[in-house]
C-alpha cells in the first residue's frame, strides 16, 4: 500500500487530492443542509449504492480494459442474476440462509456459464471487428432483457426477506436499518479487495494487467491470451450477477434494474478512467455518494428526486473537462 502511494504518478496524486476534497465537500454540504443524522443516513445510502454499482462496473472495466469490448450486456448479467436468484430463493424448500446461499451460487454459476458461452461463441469470432462486437453486446442485452420478461413476466418482484442470520436491525444515525445493508457493503468491500489481490498478487492477475496495456505483447511472450479473455469475461459476468442477487432482498427485482446499473457503471468507468481498476473502485463510491446526496438535496428543496440522475452526468462532464482520460486513466 505504501509503495502504491510512493509510486503514484503526479496526475494520479492530483486525482486522489480531488477525490478527497470532493467527498469532504459533499459531506460538509450534507451536514450543513440536512443535519447530522440525515447526512449520515444519506452517506450510508451512497456507499451502499456505490458498492452495488461497483459489482457491475468492475466487470465492465476489466472487460473493456483487456478485451477492448464495451460490454452492454453487463446490465443484463445483473438482471439475470437477480431473477435467477429470486427464483431459487423463493422456490426452494429450506431455511432462508440455505436458500440465500443457493440463490447466490446458482445465479453466479448460471450467469458465469452464460458469459462463457457468449464470449467463446459470439464475441471471440469478432475480435477483428470491434464495431460489430459493440453492436453484438447491445443486441444481446436487448434479447436477454426480452427473455427475462417473457420468462418471469413484466411485474416487479417485491424485495424478499433477508436470510435469517442477517434479518435483524441495528440503529445508525437514528435510523433502524437491516443488517442486510451492512452485508451488501461487506460483500462489495470483499470483492474490491479480492479482485485487487487477484490483480496484484497472482500470475493470472499480472497477465491481466499486462494484457490491459498490450494483449498482443502478452501473446508474443507465449501466453494464451484468449483463455485469459474468457476468464475475465466470465469473472465480470459473475460479479454483476452477484450484485443482482444481492439486490433482491434489498430492492427486489425489476426489468429496469439492469439498464439502471449499466448506465451508472458506464459513468463510473468514464469517471474512474477506462481500464483502471482503482479508478473504478474509487469512482463507484464517488458516484454512489453523489447520487445519494443529490437525491436528498432535491427531496429537501424540490420535493422530488429530480437532481439524482442529472447529478452523476454533470459529475461525469466536469471530470472529463478537468481530466479527459478520467481520474485514474492513462494520458496517451
Amino acid at each position: 500500500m505504501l509503495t502504491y502511494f510512493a509510486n503514484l504518478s503526479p496526475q494520479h496524486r492530483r486525482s486522489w487530492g480531488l477525490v478527497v476534497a470532493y467527498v469532504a465537500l459533499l459531506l460538509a454540504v450534507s451536514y450543513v443542509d440536512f443535519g447530522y443524522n440525515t447526512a449520515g443516513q444519506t452517506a450510508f445510502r451512497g456507499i451502499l449504492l456505490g458498492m452495488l454499482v461497483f459489482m457491475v462496473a468492475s466487470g465492465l472495466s476489466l472487460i473493456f480494459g483487456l478485451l477492448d469490448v464495451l460490454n452492454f450486456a453487463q446490465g443484463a448479467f445483473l438482471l439475470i442474476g437477480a431473477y435467477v436468484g429470486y427464483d431459487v430463493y423463493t422456490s426452494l424448500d429450506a431455511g432462508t440462509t440455505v436458500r440465500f446461499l443457493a440463490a447466490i451460487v446458482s445465479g453466479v454459476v448460471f450467469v458465469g456459464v452464460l458469459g462463457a458461452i457468449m464470449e467463446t461463441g459470439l464475441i471471440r469470432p469478432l475480435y477483428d471487428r470491434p464495431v460489430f462486437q459493440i453492436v453484438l453486446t447491445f443486441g444481446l442485452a436487448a434479447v436477454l432483457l426480452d427473455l427475462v420478461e417473457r420468462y418471469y413476466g413484466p411485474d416487479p418482484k417485491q424485495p424478499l426477506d433477508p436470510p435469517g442470520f442477517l434479518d435483524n436491525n441495528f440503529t445508525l444515525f437514528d435510523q433502524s436499518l437491516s443488517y442486510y445493508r451492512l452485508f451488501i457493503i461487506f460483500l462489495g468491500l470483499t470483492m474490491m479487495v479480492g479482485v485487487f489481490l487477484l490483480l496484484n498478487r497472482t500470475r493470472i492477475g499480472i497477465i491481466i494487467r499486462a494484457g490491459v496495456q498490450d494483449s498482443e505483447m502478452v501473446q508474443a511472450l507465449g501466453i494464451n491470451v484468449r483463455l485469459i479473455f474468457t476468464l475475465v469475461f466470465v469473472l465480470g459476468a459473475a460479479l454483476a450477477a452477484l450484485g443482482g442477487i444481492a439486490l433482491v432482498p434489498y430492492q427486489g427485482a425489476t426489468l429496469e434494474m439492469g439498464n439502471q446499473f449499466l448506465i451508472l457503471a458506464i459513468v463510473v468507468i468514464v469517471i474512474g478512467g477506462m481500464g483502471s481498476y482503482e479508478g473504478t473502485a474509487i469512482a463507484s463510491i464517488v458516484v454512489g455518494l453523489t447520487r445519494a446526496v443529490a437525491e436528498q438535496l432535491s427531496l429537501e428543496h424540490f420535493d422530488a428526486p429530480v437532481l439524482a440522475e442529472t447529478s452523476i452526468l454533470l459529475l461525469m462532464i466536469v471530470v472529463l473537462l478537468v481530466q479527459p482520460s478520467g481520474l485514474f486513466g492513462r494520458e496517451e
Partner: protein
Amino acid sequence: MTDYILEVQNIHTFIGEFHILEGVTVQVPPGSITVLLGRNGAGKTTTLRSIIGLTPPRSGQIIFKGEVIQGRRAYHIARMGIGYVPENRIIFRDLTVAQNLQIAERQKGDLDRKADFIFTLFPDLKRLYTLPGGNLSGGQQQMLAVARALVPDNDLLLIDEPSEGLAPVIIEQMMEAIRQLSSHTTVLLVEQNFQVASRLAERYVIIEEGLSVHAGLIADLVQDRDLIKTYLGVA
C-alpha cells in the same frame, strides 16, 4: 534437411487490405546474428511480426527448427522457443521490473535460473527491480525488453531496433549485451543504424518495399558502397 534454424520462404503478409510483404525470404543459420536492413516502412517490423505470428502471412512458408510454423497462434510459436523484443521497447508500464520478467516465465523457476545471466548483462535492472516499468528511462526500458526475452529458454530472438532513440553510451552497452547473448542464442535483428548493424551482425538481408532484395555476409556488404547507397541511403 537445411542448416538453418529459421527459414522464411517468400512470404506475403497483409495488414487489413494492404499488401505489406510481397515476397520476403530470410534464412537464419544457427548461432549467428542476422540483420534485416531497409528504409523506413520497408517491412522489417512486419517480417518479425509475421514470424512470431502477430501478423500471419497469407502465403509462403516459415520453418523454425524444421517445423512449419506459419498459421499457428502467436503464443504457440513463442513457446517453441522464440523471444520477441518489439519496436519502441514495449514493456508493461504498470508492472514492476520484477513482474515484467516474471510474466515471461514459461516454466516455474525460469527467472531464478536466468537471473544471474540477466543481471550480468544489465546490472541496472537489479537496482530497479521493484520499480514500475513506466518509471524507467528509455534505455532501461529497452534493457528490460531484451531481458524479458531472455527469461525462458529461447533458441531464437527477434529484436526490433534496439538502438532506436538511445544515447551513444547506452547503445554501446546494448550492443555489448546483444553480442554476449548471441553466444547462447541465435539473433534476428532489425537495425537502422548501419554502424551498429555492421559491427554486430554476420549476415544481412535487405528489404525494400516489402520484398527481400539482397542477402549475404555483412563483411561483403561493407565493401559494396553502391549497394549500401542504393538500398539504405547511407554512404
